Every structure is written in structure tokens, then in C-alpha cells.
């Protein structure tokens, strides 16, 4: 499969930044090192041959056994050249990722959602708060190790216990030792 | 004693009750007319064609729990709806339903000014209701409402001055008599004033398209957001009573009050077979219908647009109208 111009352009301009290029059912994906992510994205947005001025989506995928467990995914589109690309970077739980709100203001809420649901550390974000979950929520629901049965059920069965558990500083430890499910909650 | 105390009191009792009943049916009429405009049936359950809805609504409001918010100023909170309703009812003291003294409580020589001044008291109900609720939306709404009422009052009063120039009297009976003498309703002599007073009236009664103070979709009900039960009902009554007042004023000044159409054409005399007060009430309800019709048709103005309409259009036009009327009065 012939790589489109955009992919070739990045590879030429930023040699080494692209770890891999993948193609699957019509979609092109660039896999980029986390350290060079912002650089690549900036190039994709500004370069003449790519001109990805529209950020469709920012999302993530969690692959727990992996060392760098998260795939951070940017779906980009160019309203001028009308082509799409996906950029993917692997991120570990304790690693930081630069926010792209400077490039695409659209990423503001999308990154907030990624933070909210996955707990990926996004830095230099203007307003990094929980978005879908309540502000005081513990844990990141979209992670694969997030318990499917957990605080919610506990709350329903025994609200007093839940309140007690919630007010303890180290909740995860308490849940593990106590009535909570055997899983990790941050 | 009989003439000075008993009969006026009887008249007042009859009139107040008539107004309150008229208001309940006006609400029903509004619901029905809007429903028809929107290809619905409107209330149909209570009584034949929902006629008894007019009774069901007040009963519901009276029986509802009357809540006073904890942080509200309790006295002012209770006083506000009363201050809103009382002026609306007091105004009817000078509204003549017919030429005969039987049909009015008092014909005072400053009748029109009396109406203007007493309705201007009604604004307190709204301001205080919003303030006493101690809540942000009602406060915003009451500020809006009072600014709106005061500015449109200026326009309406200015316009009425030009009418007074034409009639030469402030007595409402006198104004209608003047129309009989000139043989033509003043609406035809003063069309600009008619439009101005009607628009001003819409604004003063907080009706669409000027219903910002109670804009459901913006301010969640406006100054009476925190009100419920009977106190809410009083606000409601006041609003509709004010509508009737404005319609009555427009009819008295511009549409010949209780006069039949074309009072100067003799062969239309058979129209006099209908009693005068029926003509009057009929015309008033025609205008009320127009109020409702407008509500069903038009979107709502924005606050700044409303104010600029009032100050930059209505008031200058009213002053212009006054000047033109004065010039005519002097020249002819």
C-alpha cells in the first residue's frame, strides 16, 4: 500500500520521529514517540502538504500488561486537503504528555475527557479538570483494571461503609484489605 | 348615606368580583386561543370544552402549598404580590363601562392621570417580589422588569398627552363623550398614538414580545420564580388584570369606549340595541384577543433591544406625535 503524501512528508521532515506507520481498513496511523509527539503534531498542523487544521478526536486506549500502557490517539483532519490521519503515542501511567490545546483549541475538552477517563497526565493544559465524572471521583473508569463492580455497588448496599471508606486517605489500600473488590483504585 | 357609601361599595364589590372572574376566564381564553393557534385543543377535561378550567386553575393555586424560601424577607415577600394586585384593581374605579353613572364608580376629572399614576405603583410588586425572594434569577428579572416598566411608562404617558390635547379633558367619560361629539373614534385621528400606546401597553403588562421579566426560557419564570400557591396566583391575577386595564384604556381612548362603530352615522342606529357596556366589554376582549394572538406569534425581544426600542423609537415618536398634534391644534 502506497503511503499518502502526508505520511511521507512527516517522515521526510522529521526523520526518526515516526516509530511506525500502520495501515488498516483505509486508515493511516502514525506511531510517534511520546517525546516528539508535540513536534510531529505541530508539523502536521502547519506544514503545507499535511495541513491538519481540524482535530476530530483525542482519545486513548488502555493495554494494561504493557509497560507503556496507554495509546494516546489523535484523529486529525484537514479541511483544506480533505484527508485524515491518526497519530498514536504510547504513554506510561507516570509519564507526562504535552497538551495540544495550543495547536487545536478543540482538544481542550477532549483532553480533559482523556484525563478524566484514563488519568493520563496531560501538562500545560489550560483547564485540566474532570469533565464527565464528578470532581471528587476516585479512579479512572476507562482503564481496563477499573472494577466493574465496586464503589457503586458498595454504596448501594451499605452507604455508611462507603462514606467511611471514602473519607479515608488511602482508599485503595482500604478497599483491598476490606470489603472492596480486589482491584486497584486510584 | 345610601348614595355615598352603600351603592359605591356595592359597585366596588361587583366590579372586583367581575374583574377576578374575567381574569380566570381570560386565562382560559388565552390557553384556548394559543392552543388553536398551535393546532391543539387546549384544556378539554374540566367541564364541556374545558370551560370549567377557569375554576379549576384558581382552586388548584389556592390549595397548593404556599412556600416562603428560608432566606427570603418574609414580610416583603408576602407584601409584594399584594402591592402588585391592588393597583391593578384600584384602577377600575375610574373605568367607565357606560355613559350612565351606574356604570362607573367614579368619574374624576383627572381620570386618565389617575390610571397612569396608579399603574405606576404596580412596579413595586415586581421589584420587591424579586428582591425579597433573595435569589439571583428573580433579582435579575425584577431589575429588568422595573427598568422596562418605567421606560415604557414614559413613552405611554408622552403619547397620552397628545391624546389629551385632542380631547381637552382628562376625564375618561369626557374623553368618550368627546369622541361621540366629533363622531369619530380617536383611533382614526391619532393612529400613531394608538400604536404607541398599544406597544407600550404590551410592554407594561410584560406580555410577549416584551415578556422578558418572566421569560421562562431565560430566567426560569422571572420575578415570581420563588413564588407558589396563592401568592403566585396574586401575581398572576395582577398581570391579567393589568392586561384588562390596558385594553380598557385603549378602547376608551381610541375606540370610543361604549360607543357603537361610526357613532355619527344615523342609519347604523340599530347597533345601539346592544347595551353600551356590551360594546365596551366586547371591544376590550377583542383587544385581549390581540394580546394573546401576538403572544402566539412573536418571539421575544432581548433586553437591550427592548430598551433601545423604548428609548430610541417609542419616546421620540411619541414626542414627535405630540408636537404634530400641538401644531394641528394651533393651526386648525
Amino acid at each position: 500500500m502506497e503511503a499518502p503524501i502526508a505520511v511521507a512528508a512527516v517522515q521526510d521532515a522529521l526523520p526518526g520521529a515516526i516509530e511506525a506507520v500502520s495501515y488498516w481498513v483505509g486508515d493511516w496511523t502514525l506511531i510517534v514517540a511520546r517525546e516528539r509527539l508535540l513536534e510531529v503534531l505541530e508539523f502536521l498542523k502547519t506544514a503545507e502538504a499535511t495541513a491538519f487544521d481540524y482535530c476530530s478526536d483525542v482519545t486513548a486506549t488502555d493495554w494494561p500488561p504493557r509497560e507503556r500502557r496507554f495509546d494516546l490517539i489523535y484523529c486529525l483532519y484537514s479541511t483544506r486537503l480533505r484527508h485524515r490521519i491518526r497519530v498514536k503515542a504510547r504513554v506510561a501511567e507516570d509519564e507526562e504528555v504535552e497538551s495540544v490545546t495550543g495547536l487545536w483549541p478543540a482538544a481542550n475538552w477532549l483532553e480533559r475527557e482523556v484525563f478524566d477517563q484514563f488519568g493520563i497526565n496531560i501538562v500545560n493544559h489550560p483547564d485540566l479538570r474532570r469533565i464527565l465524572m464528578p470532581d471528587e471521583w476516585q479512579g479512572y473508569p476507562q482503564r481496563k483494571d477499573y472494577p466493574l463492580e465496586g464503589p457503586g455497588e458498595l454504596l448501594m448496599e451499605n452507604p455508611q461503609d462507603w462514606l467511611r471508606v471514602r473519607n479515608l486517605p488511602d482508599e485503595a489500600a482500604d478497599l483491598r484489605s476490606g470489603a472492596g473488590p480486589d482491584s486497584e483504585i486510584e | 348615606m345610601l348614595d355615598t357609601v352603600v351603592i359605591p361599595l356595592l359597585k366596588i364589590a361587583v366590579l372586583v368580583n367581575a374583574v377576578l372572574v374575567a381574569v380566570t376566564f381570560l386565562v382560559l381564553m388565552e390557553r384556548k386561543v394559543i392552543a388553536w393557534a398551535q393546532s391543539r385543543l387546549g384544556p378539554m377535561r374540566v367541564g364541556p370544552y374545558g370551560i370549567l378550567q377557569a375554576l379549576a386553575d384558581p382552586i388548584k393555586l389556592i390549595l397548593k402549598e404556599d412556600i416562603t424560601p428560608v432566606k427570603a424577607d418574609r414580610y416583603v415577600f408576602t407584601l409584594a404580590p399584594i402591592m402588585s394586585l391592588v393597583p391593578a384593581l384600584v384602577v377600575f374605579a375610574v373605568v367607565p363601562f357606560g355613559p350612565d353613572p351606574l356604570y362607573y364608580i367614579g368619574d374624576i376629572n383627572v381620570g386618565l392621570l389617575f390610571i397612569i399614576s396608579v399603574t405606576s405603583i404596580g412596579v413595586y410588586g415586581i421589584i420587591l417580589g424579586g428582591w425579597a425572594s433573595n435569589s439571583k434569577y428573580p433579582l435579575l428579572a425584577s431589575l429588568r422588569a422595573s427598568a422596562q416598566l418605567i421606560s415604557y411608562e414614559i413613552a405611554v404617558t408622552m403619547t397620552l398627552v397628545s391624546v389629551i390635547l385632542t380631547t381637552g379633558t382628562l376625564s375618561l367619560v369626557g374623553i368618550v363623550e368627546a369622541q361621540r361629539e366629533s363622531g369619530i373614534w380617536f383611533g382614526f385621528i391619532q393612529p400613531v398614538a394608538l400604536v404607541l400606546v398599544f406597544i407600550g401597553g404590551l410592554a407594561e403588562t410584560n406580555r410577549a414580545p416584551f415578556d422578558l421579566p418572566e421569560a421562562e426560557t431565560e430566567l426560569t419564570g422571572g420575578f415570581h420564580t420563588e413564588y407558589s400557591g396563592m401568592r403566585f396566583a396574586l401575581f398572576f391575577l395582577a398581570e391579567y388584570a393589568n392586561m384588562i386595564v390596558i385594553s380598557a384604556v385603549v378602547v376608551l381612548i381610541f375606540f370610543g369606549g361604549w360607543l357603537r362603530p361610526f357613532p355619527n352615522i344615523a342609519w347604523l342606529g340599530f347597533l345601539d340595541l346592544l347595551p353600551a357596556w356590551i360594546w365596551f366589554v366586547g371591544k376590550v376582549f377583542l383587544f385581549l384577543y390581540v394580546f394573546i394572538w401576538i403572544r402566539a406569534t412573536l418571539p421575544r425581544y432581548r433586553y437591550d433591544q427592548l430598551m433601545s426600542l423604548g428609548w430610541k423609537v417609542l419616546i421620540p415618536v411619541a414626542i414627535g406625535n405630540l408636537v404634530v398634534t400641538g401644531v394641528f391644534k394651533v393651526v386648525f
Partner: protein
Amino acid sequence: MAEALLFYTLAALILGLGVMVVSARSAVHSVLFLVVNFLLVAVLYVTLNAEFVAVIQVLVYAGGIVVLYLFVVMLVNLKQAPERFSDPRRLARSGLVLGGVVLALIVVVVSSSLRAGAAPEGTLSGFGTPFTSGNTEQLGWVLYTSYLIPFELASMLLLVAMVGAIVLAKRHLGE
């Protein structure tokens, strides 16, 4: 009899409300008492055959000026009433002084009006106008003839006040 009853009732209410205006803790209550006070004064005017002035009193005072007060009170919306900082000793002092002044005034008024028991009949001013009930037209006539210049001056005063109020209350652009 009826007249006296009406007067005493009105007078009592007016004075009572006046006291309430001055003594009310909350400024909004104060404004409310003021409105009712003005309305009652208007009723008093009606009993004195001054319908036009009564209506103007309601329209301008109750419907206009006091609304303005209410607005300002709401805008200012005090967290702490200024009275909290006041000095009780000064209150006592001013109370004493005022009591004396009240006494003196009442004495003066009563004695002077007793002396004026046989007050000059007829008109005081040179522009005597026949006075009947329902005097709006006459009042207008007097206003626009004898008192034309004061009338125009009053209108100028109002204009200046309007401009002044706008200048004072308007926030400067860009602030």
C-alpha cells in the same frame, strides 16, 4: 365629623409611617414605608381638593422617585448596616437637641397660627385665580402664565439633574 375622622386617621398613619421610615432597620423596609407614606399624603391632598397634585404626588413621588431609591438600595445591597459603627453618645446628644427643637417649633407654629386665627381672607398672591374643585386646567393655566419662568427654570433644573445623574452613575468607558 367624617372629615375629622379621616384627617386624624390619615395624620396618625402618615406620622407613624414617617417614624417607621426613619427607624426601620432595613433600608428596603424604609423605602416601603416611604411609599405608603407618600400614598397617604396623596389621599390627604385629595381631601384638600387638590386632585392634580395628588395624582402627581403618586406618579412622580411614589411611582418615580421612590422606585429610584429602591433601585439604589437594591444595588448597594449592604452587608452591614452603617448604624453598627455609630456612636451611641452622639445619638443621645442629637436626641436631646432635637427634642428641644421640636418643642420650640410646635410652640412657634401653634402660637403663630393662633395669632393668624383671623387670617387675611382672600388671596395672598396677586394672581388670584378662581379656585374650584377639578382644577387641573386652572393649574395649567397658572403654571404657564404667571409661573412660566419658574416653570422653565424647573425644567432646566431637571435636565441638568438628568445629565448630572447620568454622568455620575455611568462607568467610564474602558474601565
